[in-house]
């Protein structure tokens, strides 16, 4: 069994276990809400997915699984996280044409790349659907929360497509330039990670210090964007970079744990008291 896979998965499981503990503790003290219950459900799914990965690596290493329980687990965690975001931002009405088009084109391009790399048509097409849906939800949440200005959102979109373009170029350039283009893609991906994780931490601190629920919503939107960016980088990386991306994914999950708890703490006092009485 690969030691690094074990370590990164264990780190992620510790983070998720901590998230479950924090959320359950919050529910005990101040009562549960649909957002918090969905959050616990989503991270339990994520936790089980990691456990399953470790067990598969230990018991059935190097087994080709075209579509199995692991794919269902990934689908579950993406859809539950997307549902959680829908629950948080369902009240905000916005026009979302550009975001929808971006999500569809990006998901299609990403799925094509996955198929080109792995050759697993069934798993990758299905993965494109649920991951694309998650991307769509995160992108519209970012718009609805007004966490980033229009210019910055366009810049992020351009960066995302530049990464896809760089990865696609690897198939067409002469062998001498392959490594250069590949490294360029990694540089772009990790610029995005550093940018988004820094922004997520800044927004989280602002949300904790402030009283506004809107600030907390912004922090959630940025946190989830950081998560999806790290997840995407993870799926597009290889070797050492894969483990680095996996570690950043755990970091963004930790930020999300605090984001969701902070959002729950910023609830109107009447609601909190009513829930506490009921629980």
């Amino acid at each position, binding site marked *: 069994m690969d030691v690094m896979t074990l370590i990164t998965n264990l780190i992620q499981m510790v983070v998720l276990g901590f998230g479950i503990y924090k959320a359950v503790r919050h529910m005990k003290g101040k009562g549960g809400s*649909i957002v918090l219950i969905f959050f616990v459900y989503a991270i339990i799914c994520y936790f089980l997915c990691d456990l399953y990965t470790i067990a598969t690596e230990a018991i059935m290493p190097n087994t080709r699984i075209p579509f*199995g329980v692991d794919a269902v687990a990934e689908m579950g965690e993406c859809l*539950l996280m997307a549902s959680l975001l*829908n629950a948080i931002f369902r009240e905000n009405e916005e026009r979302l044409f550009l975001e929808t088009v971006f999500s569809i084109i990006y998901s299609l391009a990403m799925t094509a790349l996955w198929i080109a790399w792995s050759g697993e048509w069934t798993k990758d097409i299905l993965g494109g659907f649920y991951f694309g849906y998650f991307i769509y939800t995160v992108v519209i949440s970012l718009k609805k929360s007004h966490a980033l200005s229009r210019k910055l959102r366009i810049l992020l979109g351009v960066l995302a497509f530049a990464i896809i373009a760089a990865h696609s170029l690897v198939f067409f350039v002469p062998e001498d330039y392959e490594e250069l283009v590949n490294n360029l893609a990694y540089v772009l991906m990790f610029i995005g990670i550093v940018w988004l994780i820094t922004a997520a931490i800044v927004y989280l601190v602002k949300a904790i210090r402030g009283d506004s629920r809107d600030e907390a919503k912004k922090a959630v939107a940025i946190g989830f964007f950081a998560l999806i960016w790290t997840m995407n980088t993870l799926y597009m990386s290889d070797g050492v970079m894969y483990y680095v991306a996996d570690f950043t994914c755990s970091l963004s999950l930790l930020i999300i744990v605090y984001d969701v708890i902070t959002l729950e703490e910023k609830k109107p006092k009447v609601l909190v008291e009513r829930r506490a009485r009921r629980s």
Partner: protein
Amino acid sequence: MIYSENILICIAIPLLIAIIFTKRSTRRFITSFILGMIICLISAYFSGFIKFVTGTSMDDTAVLYSPIVEEILKMLPILFYIVVFQQKDDKIFIVAVGIGLGFATFENCCYILSSGASDIAYVLIRGMAVGIMHLVCALLLVLGLSLARYFRVLAIPAGIGALAIPTVFHGLYNLLVSKPGVSSYLGYTIPILTAVILYIPYRKVMNEEREELIDYRRTK
């Protein structure tokens, strides 16, 4: 070779007759129990078909694909019950428990008939692990579906997401017990541990409801 259909008929007939003489929740439980056994048989057909199509071995099919098939088939009647009859949570829980137990009972019957029941230790482990595992999976599934029901916006992704947890739990159990040794012992203990973890909050809720009922009667 065993004749699973004949075993099903043999177990189901007295239960079907019992439905006539019972009422409400007992009738609901017996019906869902029979349904659970039928689902077990159908999922065996499906798993056999997937084994044939993918060309994987019997063991690999049981580990990799059977959990998905079984959990989807278990979800369908519960989903039908939730969507069509719009019942309360406690009634849905009875149906889920019935389906889970019916499934586990029929699977255990077929397994014991095919491989013998002479070793009492193994029979106990089988009953404690597989029986409880199907029950826990059904409870996890109905918990997720109830959540998805209350969460009215885009319930379909939430419902599919809710299916993932019992599927991974089931897959993890099948994977761990597929190899003898430490992993199988871990696999056998996971369902019991989860049942205990689920029982503690359930018991707390039940006690609170009972106390509320007593208070209500006193005030009356």
